[in-house]
């Protein structure tokens, strides 16, 4: 005979493997989500469509245009002579930048007079627009620099005296500066937050809806036996999910991983135990599966997306943001994940975040236990 806890775990496992929807929710949708975000969510600003209105049509203006379109950052949409045409392109989203070269561009430059080039940037995505402006400024400066060099040369000053101090920089942890190295491990954290919690949320509310909860209410089973028995199979599912996503991140997305496999696995096990527990807690305090699911969506994925440090570092949030961040288990696991993938930190460096996870997990199960009454109403 099995212990009560194992009896519940075995029952949950049987229900889980026989329900096609649970299987899809457990394995297929998380992987699908990883694909969508892994390929779709890129923070790299490259191949920006650009339009030039060239009223000058001179060699110099063509040099100026070439300066931009030979870089990997900009893709030429068209060189136009009509303002209206260019405006249409930016309105319809086919272009995001218009550069307006005035008719007397080459004439004035040759006379060494100052001239302005008009630049219009699509500001509907502010962070993109800022990056675009930075690119434009630096390419523009480069063009200016070359012009000045030519002028100095022609005046007989010669040599590379124009830019006396050069900067030599090194990027640590993500040398190629590709955002995929940050998105995919981040998605690992979010997926392992959302799906285990969602499945946990259905566990007790589901039995409340069907009426089978009375089997547990009216038997001598202990509350902790119910909670742990129900959590176990779903922790196993979530951990298998972790292994799948981990493999996909390395094999499919080619993300750099230099940390300890075992350390991350341990952290993932803790984290999934914790997130299943969060779902269980929501399931305990609600009466229907729908309510439990909505609460889970609101309190896990939405907050984790914004505050776990997925896109914005926790350190650059305001005080409120930092407090919220530290109330989420995702924040601690995010640190462990980023630290393992990119920085290769050892156990010693991760101990703080790991203990955060342990405390959080214990707290959430205690909370669920205390709120789980073997009574209705």
């Amino acid at each position, binding site marked *: 005979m*099995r212990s009560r806890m194992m009896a519940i775990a*075995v029952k949950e496992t049987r229900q889980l493997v026989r329900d096609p929807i649970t299987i899809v929710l457990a394995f297929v949708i998380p992987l699908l989500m990883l694909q969508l975000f892994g390929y779709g969510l890129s923070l790299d600003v490259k191949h920006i469509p650009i339009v030039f209105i060239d009223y000058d049509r001179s060699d110099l203006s063509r040099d100026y245009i070439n300066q931009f379109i030979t870089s990997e950052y900009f893709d030429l949409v068209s060189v136009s002579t009509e303002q209206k045409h260019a405006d249409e392109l930016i309105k319809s989203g086919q272009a995001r930048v218009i550069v307006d070269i005035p008719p007397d561009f080459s004439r004035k430059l040759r006379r060494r007079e100052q001239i302005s080039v008009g630049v219009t940037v699509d500001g509907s995505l502010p962070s993109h627009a800022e990056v675009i402006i930075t690119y434009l400024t630096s390419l523009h400066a480069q063009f200016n620099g070359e012009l000045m060099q030519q002028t100095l040369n022609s005046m007989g000053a010669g040599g590379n005296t124009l830019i006396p101090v050069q900067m030599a920089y090194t990027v640590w942890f993500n040398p190629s500066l590709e955002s995929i190295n940050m998105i995919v491990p981040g998605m690992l954290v979010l997926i392992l937050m959302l799906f285990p919690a969602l499945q946990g949320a259905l566990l007790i509310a589901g039995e409340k809806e069907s009426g089978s909860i009375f089997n547990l209410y009216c038997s001598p089973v202990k509350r902790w036996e119910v909670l742990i028995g129900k959590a176990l199979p779903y922790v196993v599912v979530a951990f298998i999910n972790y292994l799948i996503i981990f493999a996909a991140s390395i094999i499919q997305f080619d993300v750099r991983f230099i940390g300890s496999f075992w350390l991350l696995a341990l952290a993932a096990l803790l984290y999934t135990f914790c997130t299943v527990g969060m779902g269980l807690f929501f399931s305990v305090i609600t009466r229907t599966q729908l309510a439990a699911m909505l609460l889970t969506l609101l309190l896990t994925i939405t907050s984790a997306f914004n505050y776990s440090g997925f896109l914005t570092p926790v350190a650059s949030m305001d005080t409120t943001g930092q407090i919220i961040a530290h109330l989420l288990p995702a924040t601690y696991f995010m640190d462990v994940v980023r630290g393992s993938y990119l920085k290769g930190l050892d156990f010693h460096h991760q101990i703080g975040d790991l203990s955060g996870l342990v405390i959080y997990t214990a707290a959430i199960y205690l909370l669920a236990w205390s709120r789980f009454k073997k009574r209705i109403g």
Partner: protein
Amino acid sequence: MPLSEVTTPPILVDGLSKSYKKIEAVKRVSFSVSKGQVFGLIGADGAGKTSVIQCLAGVLSANSGSAFIDGIDTLKHPELIKDKIGYMPQGLGLNLYDSLSVDENISFFRDLRQVPESTFRSNKERLLKMTHLDKFLNRPAAKLSGGMRQKLALICTLLHLPDILLLDEPTTGVDPISRREFWAIIHDLVATREVTVLLSTSYMDEAERCHQIGLMHQGDLLDLGTPETLTKNLKGQYYQISYHDPNQLMSHLQQWPEAESTALFGRQIHLHTAVDSQQLKTKLAQLELTDVAFEQIAPNLEDLFMHHLRDKSHAKAPQDSNHHLQHLVIEQSKSGTIECQQLSRYFGDFVAVDKVSFDLKAGEILGLLGPNGAGKTTLIKMLCGLLPISEGSARVVGFDVASEHLIIKRHIGYMSQQFSLYPDLTVLNNIKLYAGLYGLSAKRLKKQIDSLGEGLSLTPYFGRVTSSLPRGVRQRLSLACALLHNPALLILDEPTSGVDPNVRRQFWDHVHYLTQQNQISALVSTHYMDEAEHCDRLGFMQNGKMIIVDTPARLKAQAETICGQLLVAEGVEYANILSTLRTQFPDAFLYGRYVHWQSLNIEEDKRQAQKLLHENQLEAVIESRSLSIEETFANYMTSEALKHAI
């Protein structure tokens, strides 16, 4: 054993009250159940039965009073009683896990209750045998019929051999055959293990199977006692009167000051009055009616319920004046007939309906009875034109179901207890919504609102929100919505499941008026004998086949001829009487405190049984009785001899 333990009743409820916000669900209820007794809490939905049971099961807190299981306060120490009880919540096997097989469900309950292996093995085997589920061990619970689910739920409740069983509406929605088996198991447990049982039901016909009953209504415990003594205490006389125009006689009797209450049962009138039969004879003679006949009958529990409800309200119950019914005029353009010939429906290899033939005349009520899965629903769907037929033919209200099903829908009205009105709409808005769905013109709608509003006494409620109405009014509203488009045929699907007896009586008064005065016909699908009693003819279905269609009287007579009359043995030691009688009459079974069996040779069998009991120093009174509708139905379902005789 210390004395205190001997006297402590296994179940004791003392002044228990429970409120949900403003609603008092249970009002100072007190009763006790002694060891080895079956106690039935009887009442409609919302009477407070579930709350009482849940307080006893230790899953619900009360506002005041106390509840004890074996002397332990379940409100203060709920965890201490959980090993002692077996609790089955309301709903057909809702505590089962659908994706788990029968065997896996049983194993889960073993582990949950930590039943020792030796107890488990013998108990499981015995329970599986009793319930005939041993052949279905590997079938998932989701694929069991309603009756089988309920039996599996019972196995899971009984697995740890609890001495006290708390069963909440265990037979609601279960077909009569499964219900009989279910009761046989309960009575067997009581006889062999002295189990104490508290169960609830909304069906009066189940009360007789209990040793003690408590009548509940809106949180009050109206009365308490054995089914026999309770009805014996009723004052006045009860008569059954037959006359060719019962509605006409009803209206006469309702104006008679001596009549306490009247109700229609099919074409019979039940009259409750203080006068003796001589005075009734005089009264009926005064009315100058020919061919009127009456006989005195014993009051049943429904009469008892009506008596208490009248006492409480200190006024005549609304169904005692049926004058408003004269406004109920349905101008159907067709005659509500059904001619069904060799009608069949297949789903792949499965024959859901198998060559069914029957007729329904205008103004007739035909009841369809059959176990779950007998094909009743499929048959009704085909007759309504909702499901294509496979073979055979049927004409409903004069139209062919295969080619003219769209017209048929315009001439039938459908109503069930579950049929949803929109609860947040007012009564009038619900009516208007249904009128819109049926495409009634504004002029017709106005006329219908007037006639149905008056005829079903709905006019005072027109502006009220439906959810705030008493159940009886909601039921009349459902009926009004089904009648809006002047249908010729009403389809009623368990129309009075779980309602108060007064509401049920009123509903049937309306249906009888509609069929007898307006010539509307009705097809009723039900599991309940309370409803079957109101039908002119009954059709028994099994495995897709219509076994027989006939009047209740003729069905009974034929069953008695082939399978025998009922013999009832009543004695104090009913468990011993049963085991003794079984040596001679193996089909004998327990029915409450009585032993029932059927006999083709009653005088001889009576003598033999008396002799047998005498030899074993047992005393019992043995009487013969005519079969009830439920027993008749069971005979047709189980007796091969009877099936051959048809």
